[in-house]
């Protein structure tokens, strides 16, 4: 079944993804409004994939993390860097490993 793609990001990210064919783009403007929009994306039946940029995800903070914990399988939410290439210091994937495996294990790409 076909699902649509949604993007929450700064203006440039939204522009780029709109050019690439993402159906919904939302330009971040204030925490509360973005949260409301995100909640709408999360409950939408036709959206299967949500991209959100790292700085915004970080700004949304605990509320965002709570949403990620309680969400269903769909939509899949992926955090992406914005045009500054900003990525958080604590990688959420490593957090995940630490929590589930109980040890810190660094996974590197081959040759990386």
């Amino acid at each position, binding site marked *: 079944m076909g699902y649509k793609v949604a993007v929450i990001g700064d203006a*440039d990210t939204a522009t*780029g993804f709109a*050019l690439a*064919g993402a159906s919904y783009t939302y330009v971040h403007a204030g925490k509360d409004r973005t949260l409301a929009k995100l909640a709408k994306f999360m409950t939408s039946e036709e959206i299967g994939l949500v991209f959100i940029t790292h700085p915004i995800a970080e700004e949304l903070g605990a509320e965002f993390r709570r949403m990620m914990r309680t969400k269903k399988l769909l939509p*899949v939410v992926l955090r992406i860097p914005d045009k500054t290439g900003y990525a958080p210091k604590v990688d959420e994937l490593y957090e995940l490993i630490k929590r589930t495996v109980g040890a810190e294990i660094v996974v590197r790409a081959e040759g990386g």
Partner: protein
Amino acid sequence: MAAVAVVTPTRMELLKLKQRVSLAQKGHDLLREKMDALVIEFFEVLRRIGEARTGALKQLSLAHRTLSVCSAIMGTIETRQASMEAKRELEVEISTRHVMGVVVPTLEVDKVERNALARGYSLHTTSSVLDEASKEFEKALGLLVKLAELEGSAHAIARELERTKRRVNALEYILIPQLKAALKFIEMRLDEMERENFSRLKRIKAMLEAGA
């Protein structure tokens, strides 16, 4: 332990408890195996994320660079306007797959890369750098969809892993010791009763012999 106090020291109860212990142990072993398999799967996914992520992020930053060039040449407003005119009907095929009883998403997208005519913005008012930027973003989007699938799987597996771990620990550190303690209590109690009976019989026998 609290559970010890409530069991009645009978042979029937002993048998029942023995059965429960063996069942709990069997469950524990099975869950352990499931956990091991999940860990293997989890690391496989993590390894693939590592590979996919580098490629996708590189492509994304390249896309952002081309878009910046496009904004510089065409103007920011025009670029944005073109993005609004663009056809935005990308569809991602999403289905689910089972890995060790865990439902993980699979995302698939065909034809991310379109030709300039299919994109929907007007060609004679836009520059070729816009086509370039769109192309790079389409490529990036394709890679990110794959990455999203992997990260979605990792999260689903991690959640299941956590749940399994909790159950294994509950069995290993709480239920099984509790049952074993109850078992031991009953055995001791039965032994004690046996000894009591034995000495009672001896005493009665002695009394009878003394009386005879």
